[in-house]
């Protein structure tokens, strides 16, 4: 009898737990279990997942972390059982999180602003009540222009080549450049063969090339031509990742997976304390990278990376 009772109790408990886990999160209080979905194996994705986990542990948070596998196939459903908040690392994870009707709040990260907005447009889903935010991996344009103004005083002609995936940034760039008193030389391209002629036109009218990520403009296949052509014009390029600085860009401001993880962790800790899901945001932590060889070769004297970083982090520069 006792055994029977115990079994019933256990079953009831299990049912209750399962029901709790499956209940719409909107009805739930602060999150207790964070499901991390990584879009790809290893690399920056794994680094982020580990950093969030250890960040929570270091803060003695009561949040526990489970790994949610990314569904196979383009529009596979996310099996988020057990989690009551999803952290989606990378575009593929974000797409899965948006495509699935799990009703959980989602923090997308390691994703560029443009890619995030496109996903949101493509997956209107159950628009009402959906709670989604992001910690973008790209830097606000203002921060990049700030860097140009500080690191390269006197260079006021900014060259930009935009492709299909970045052209929506054109108007914003134009507004900001006007704010900063920069002259903007802007070209838009629609296909690969247009790149070099457009770059040439831009370089003729600019004294710094600002790289805005777009797979048509900046890829492993184009980086050599772009960097060498701008170097021949003695026009430094401001890139968007440390890898580009290593390759020959003069400067970049960027956030590492660890830095993005810190920001996500902070959001999670605040939510644990009952705060609401914050709006999508740019990285709060970032580093400045400079290529000393390129600077010397172009006859440029740069402030140390840390000094530029400090300047970009001054309170009035916060987005």
């Amino acid at each position: 009898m006792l055994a029977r009772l115990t079994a019933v109790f256990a079953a009831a408990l299990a049912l209750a737990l399962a029901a709790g886990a499956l209940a719409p999160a909107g009805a739930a209080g602060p999150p207790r279990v964070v499901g991390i979905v990584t879009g790809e194996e290893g690399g920056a994705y794994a680094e982020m997942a580990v950093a969030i986990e250890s960040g929570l542990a270091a803060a003695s948070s009561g949040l526990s972390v489970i790994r949610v596998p990314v569904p196979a196939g383009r529009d596979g459903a996310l099996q988020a059982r057990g989690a009551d908040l999803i952290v989606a690392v990378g575009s593929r994870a974000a797409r899965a999180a948006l495509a699935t009707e799990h009703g959980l709040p989602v923090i997308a990260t390691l994703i560029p602003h443009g890619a995030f907005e496109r996903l949101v447009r493509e997956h209107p889903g159950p628009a009402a009540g959906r709670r989604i935010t992001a910690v973008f991996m790209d830097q606000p344009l203002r921060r990049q222009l700030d860097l140009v103004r500080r690191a390269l005083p006197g260079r006021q002609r900014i060259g930009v080549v935009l492709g299909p995936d970045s052209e929506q940034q054109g108007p914003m760039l134009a507004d900001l450049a006007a704010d900063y008193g920069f002259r903007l030389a802007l070209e838009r391209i629609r296909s690969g063969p247009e790149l070099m002629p457009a770059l040439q036109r831009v370089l003729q009218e600019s004294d710094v090339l600002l790289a805005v990520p777009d797979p048509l403009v900046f890829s492993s296949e184009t980086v050599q031509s772009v960097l060498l052509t701008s170097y021949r014009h003695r026009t430094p390029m401001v890139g968007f990742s440390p890898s580009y600085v290593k390759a020959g860009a003069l400067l970049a401001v960027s956030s590492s997976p660890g830095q993005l993880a810190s920001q996500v962790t902070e959001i999670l800790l605040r939510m644990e304390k009952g705060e609401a899901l914050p709006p999508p945001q740019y990285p709060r932590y970032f580093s400045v990278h400079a290529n000393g060889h390129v600077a010397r070769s172009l006859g440029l004297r740069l402030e140390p990376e840390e000094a530029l970083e400090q300047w970009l982090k001054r309170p009035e520069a916060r987005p």
Partner: protein
Amino acid sequence: MTAGRNGRNSLLAAAMLAAGPAFAADAPPAEGLSEQEFLREVPVVLSASRLRQPLDQAPAAITVIDREMIEASGAREIPELFRMVPGFVVGHVVGHDGVVGYHGLTDNFPRRIQVLVDGRSIYSLANIGGVDWSALPLALEDIDRIEVTRGPNSVSYGANAFLGVVNIYTRYPTQDLGLQVSVSQGEEGIADRFIRYAGTRDGLDYRISLASRRDHGFDEVNDSQKLTFANARAEYRLDPKNTLGVEAGLSDGNQGIGEPDNILDPIRDSEVESNFVQLYWRRVLDGDAELFVQYYRNFDKVRDNFSVTAPPPFPPLVEPINRDKTSTRDNIEFQHTFAPAESLRFAWGSEARWERVESPGLLGTEATQKNSFWRVFGNAEWRPAPAWLVNAGLMYEDNQLGGSMLSPRLALNYTIAPGHTVRAGVTRGYRTPNLFEEKADVKVSLNGILIDQDILARGGLKPESILAREIAYLGEFSSLRMSVDARVFRESIQDLIGEHQEKLPPGFEQVFPFSFFNDAFNFTNNHWANITGAELQVNWSPFSTTRLVLSAANMDLDASDINDDFFVKNPNRPTYARSAPRNSMSLLAIQRLPGRVQFSALYSYYDEMDWLGSDRVPSYNRLDLRLAHKFKGSWGSGEAAVVYQNLTPAYTDFAEENTFDRRAYFTLKLNF
């Protein structure tokens, strides 16, 4: 920039283009913008070995003539550009034969400056040494910039980088995509044409230019020129690490030569021909290292066959004279650049060359004359402390002409404060005797009878050697937008090769009156020269629309006398000691005006000087002006320009009969 090699090949192969699918496999299928753009590792493009060394870290004085200066100067031909380099003189033996000298000792065949185009030496053995600019298949439009090393640089470029080195870098195809057409027309028969197409596809960047240059030269001289030439450059990126490049060119033309009343040098046309092909392979190695391998072949030919008829009282015999010259050069080289530590860069390599020359008129034989050499070199750039930079290098060369030579260099650059650097350097360089100095046999015979033996080289010459010391200051005043490069130098030349009249050996009996003296010129190492001086270069943009480039030099040349020709005691005969102007300067001013108009002026001044083997020319001024208007349309863009050369009074150029008058030409350039 390679450690110590002053940009040798630094950008000649520089670009690689979008091609290989090699990296595509690393990324997930592209679906617009993703985090992959940020996370992707991209290959190192501007490796330390490829970057140009900034001027304040170079081990020698370098003047850069950039594209803007080339255009603003109003020059039509390459030699004229060197007016903008401190200490350089430019002359014209005849209208089509520009000569470029530095620190004196300059005659019709300046042979103490090495010249390379994209790393290919065009310093020739075929003439009396030096560079024949007139047949070079290269248009000014295809030149991106010229770097001039002032001072010896045998440590990087081997023998004959003696008083200076000129590195010409051509435009990379992607700098000028599309079609460009240019037409120049002007006084003195100036009629230049240029058409170029540059494109890029599937990892191949290419350009091809066709051009022609025509003018009548000086008024009183038979020196008109017609040259047609083509030049092409292509680079193909095999994969992110390997690039193959090819350059080729050819030219063909006619040049007026000869004098009206000289029966041995009558008025006639000579035919010139030149071609080259250059192949290279560049491989990026791990750890900021690079391997560069190159082969090239130059071929140059002058066809100058004529006959002279003996004047009375001789019987009217007709003697054919063959002044044809051909030379062929094959050159292979490799260079390995690497950075074993953050503060240390190293470049080493080797080069070998084979040359064949046929010049019966100058060398007295139909047989092919040959020369070859091999070299090995190493240059290190070491930064022991942030403010200190040490450049040390050594070149060993074994040359059939001149034997073995060891050229070292040591230079210290000390940064006093950011933007202020002092440099002290010492280096040794060599110039090998050329085939003419070693083997010249120039004579006039009639029907097999020796009339006059003009030159008979006895051979056995040693190379000329130079020891150069300098102290320099380089200042960068960013707030004033000004850079200053000043230096003082002392150069001691030993074993300087010069010509002397010497008695002829038996077997060279000449006819009267030549038999009376029975002598001919020979070359010996009996001379020396000491050159001390100061050079200044200032680049200043007082306003964003204005640029000024000043160059100035003061030189004191002390040298043994040039010849002991005992029956010509002309007090005005050229001498080594007066073969450089004591003071010289130039100022280039560029002013951008509203409405896409640009005005530029190039002024230069030279003290009196002697051109060896020619005349003493008085001091002179020259002022050139250029006014250009750029325009744009939906079809493309263009530029119309008018150039006035020498608005100042006419001056004597190289020889008394060469009068450089005012001349004007206009240019229309269209880009589609």
